[in-house]
């Protein structure tokens, strides 16, 4: 009974919360800019509207363009199920499946298809966006792998749930957590790496890639983005929470609640950051991401020393 309840809540949460989080971020950002801003539930409205619009596809597009959003969304959903962004999992039988390398490469699969789809239409923007996306992920992925590996070293396992079940040193946790936040900013194409709201072609990365999408396709992409936001911020939040040793000792439900709250908080923080930062020149993005790399390297060094 209890298990059923938890499962239900978890699933519903998994489906709803990401959009909600996006809504919150937008709202806070609007407030930062002294706008009233759209209601927090706006993403839901957007989705339902997009699903009700006709889809327009470029004549030069192929099946890649059509299928990439579907696979992307599916990958995002599965990853969201696998990643303990809420401090727990649907069922512990999946522990081996929560391998962080698997997660990273699954997300890479989604990205791979998105980039292909962007080039598929034969528009210049698509290519530009894809190229930049590739560059960013080239800069981010090593950071992610090294950082999480540093966490994993303590636990002696590459499965996220095991990692987060084991106690980890606060220092490593904080370093990796902050590295993850920076990485998340880049991966989710947020300020200062990318401006999700801009429509000046030269500044956009993710928007440039999905420029050709409309209606259902766009809906799926938006939803996938929301899920990925949740995944990355969730990972960051979990890691930061583990800096507080008592956290692992808490019962599951508490942890669940705290994770949700911390996610929201992190979302707000990101929004504030977006309000404060200006978008970086494209050439200086690597320097910014170097911070994350340095932090995860430090974490790796400490972890290697502590084992």
């Amino acid at each position, binding site marked *: 009974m209890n298990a059923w309840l938890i499962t239900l809540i978890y699933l519903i949460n998994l489906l709803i919360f990401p959009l909600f989080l996006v809504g919150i971020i937008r709202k806070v950002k609007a407030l930062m800019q002294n706008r009233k801003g759209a209601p927090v539930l706006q993403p839901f409205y957007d989705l339902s509207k997009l699903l009700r619009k006709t889809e327009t596809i470029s004549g030069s597009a192929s099946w890649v363009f059509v299928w990439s959003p579907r696979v992307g969304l599916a990958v995002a959903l599965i990853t969201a199920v696998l990643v303990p962004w809420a401090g727990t999992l649907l069922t512990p039988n999946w522990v081996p499946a929560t391998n962080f390398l698997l997660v990273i490469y699954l997300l890479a699969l989604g990205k791979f298809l998105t980039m292909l789809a962007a080039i598929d239409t034969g528009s210049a923007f698509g290519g530009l966006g894809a190229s930049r996306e590739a560059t960013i992920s080239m800069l981010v992925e090593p950071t992610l792998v090294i950082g999480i590996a540093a966490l994993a070293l303590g636990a*002696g396992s590459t*499965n996220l749930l095991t990692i987060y079940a084991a106690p980890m040193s606060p220092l490593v946790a904080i370093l990796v957590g902050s590295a993850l936040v920076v990485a998340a900013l880049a991966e989710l194409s947020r300020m200062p790496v990318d401006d999700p709201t801009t429509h000046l072609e030269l500044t956009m990365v993710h928007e440039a890639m999905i420029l050709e999408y409309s209606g259902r396709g766009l809906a*799926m992409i938006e939803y996938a983005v929301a899920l990925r936001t949740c995944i990355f911020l969730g990972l960051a939040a979990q890691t930061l929470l583990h800096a507080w040793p008592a956290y692992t000792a808490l019962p599951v439900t508490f942890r669940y609640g705290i994770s949700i709250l911390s996610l929201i908080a992190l979302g707000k923080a990101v929004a504030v950051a977006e309000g404060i930062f200006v978008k970086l020149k494209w050439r200086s993005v690597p320097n910014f991401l170097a911070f994350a790399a340095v932090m995860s390297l430090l974490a790796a060094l400490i972890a290697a020393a502590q084992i």
Partner: protein
Amino acid sequence: MSVSEFMGGSGIWCGAAVLLWLAVAVAGLLKRKYSGSALSVLTIIGCAFLLLAAIFGRNCSLAFPLPWYLGDSRFSFVIDPLSRWFLAIIGVVGIPVALFSPGYLRHMRQRISLGFVWAALALLLATMVGVILAANAIVFLVAWEVMAASSFALVIADHEQRDIRRAAFIYLGATRTGSAFLMAGFLWAHQLTGSWSFSEWSLSGVSALGPALLIFVGLATKAGSWPFHLWLPIAHPAAPAPVSAIMSGVMIKTAIYAMARFFVVGGSFSVPAIGPIILILGAISAFWGVIFALLQHDLKRLLAYHSVENIGIIMMGLGISLLGKRYHVPLLAQLGLAAALFHTLNHAIFKSLLFLGAGAVDTRTHLRNVEKLGGLIHRMPWTAGAFVVGSAAICALPPLNGFASEWMLYQGFFAFAQHGHSVGTRMGALLLMGWLALIGALAIACFVKAVGVVFLGNPRSQQAEHATEAGRGMVIAQMLLAFMCIGLGLAAPLILSPLGKIAAQMGSPSLLRRTWTIPIGLLALLLIVTVGVLAIWMRQLSRSLPVRRFITWECGFGDLGPRTQYTAASFAQPISRIFGAIYGYALEVTVKGRHRRHFPETVTAETMHEAHLETKIYVPILKSIHRMSGNFLMRLQAGSVHQYLIYMALVLALLLWIGVGR
């Protein structure tokens, strides 16, 4: 052992395959204007025999009876799990290649004699089997050299083009230089052990270092590892596509086999220093290969550089396996070896798939410069599909085979990070994980570029415009390989049992079963189901709201021409600029026109880079030898008989000094 015993084992099948191929070679040489279909069938049967030998055969060994003898050693062969693994690789790649070739070679019929190509191809396959089965150094060397010669014949098949001749001779020279090192190493080892047969070589300590290093250099040259890789990106593009597939997929792997045999499994050499060397060279060449691949505009050259990259990854696996042996961590040793061997198989499959795809494009468009292609996915859908699968596999994306092996390699690094004896090694292992991730991301960038520019978007040239789907045989071959990519990805846990057998050759019982944790099949199923559900849902929606086809958004200007698409060069530019220091990357933009600022008439932009290793090291060495030879001739053989007589007088003086003096 005796012949009869050999019959019982895999030998009969290998023997049959080799004989079949030799028959093909003879037939090809005798009847040079062959259509090829008959030969291809025979070749395929040979490969099938080989697969039987690999899968069902028992371990065994053979020595030819007298008078067949190589002066100093018998013709002796041995088959064990390791060699069976590589036999399987030959068979697995050989079949699709033989399927593909007739269709491909048809478009070169005027320029090359098909029978010759078939003969060389069959000979290459046979000699590769010889290399894999050789039980002693001399047999190995004989097979090795004939393999080099036959592959040279294949590279130079289309010999009327100057640059192809050049490539072939560079290849021949490089490979001979490599085998010179190999020879030296073998001789030295023979001095130390007094035997030619690998099984009796058990060298260790300082004395083993010399031969081990020499042999390693020889093998690394063939494998195309940094810094000995210079021939690889030159030779592979020059060869016909199926040949590139065989060379890149299998032939360079024979060197990996030898490394595994000498240093890891067989334990002929237990030299601590070799492990780190292999690991570091592997790490460098993996990175080197991929960043140079990113710059290439010739599709096959790009793929060739990716071979350098993947050889690097494989060598990293071997390296940590050796470190595992060194620190007595069986798990690590076995993980490394298993990852390396598994990736060898996987790379053989997806790289040959990609080369065949490039070949298919070549036959239909007669273009290899990616900047001239585009939009082929509409014109050759099957080839495109297979190519996408291959690209995803080489980028190690789940649930394909590339991911499986690279995941094992990650696990190996992680295990190394756990069992490392010092902070430095543990840190190093973590860094290697990041390094591998970096390489993976770069590979993704590179193949998004390749697929995107070649197959997606709009055609950039007439040839691409009028391309048609490749012939049936070619498509089937590619499909076969694509399915293998998927199948091996899902069946990864099953592959562990033969790998376990090989790992057990290292002494300790296999621990690999436990290492594979992720339920890849289940996840793939889940993925398919989810995608399916989404697709059905979308179908439902599109009933009411059908999809509208329209032109790509062109910002209000008229219809977009193909020239407005993003080019490969511009795609690669951001990353190339980041690593620009390594190969002097530069972008030359020249604007011409009356008022250049406002009314440019022509704007040309071209990127340029320089491979310093070649230009700064290899070319000068060759030049100096050439010059030395020239001077030598000028001075010595100047044509004056008096001068020659003076030489004689000088020699007389020297000899007198020796004869009288001592």
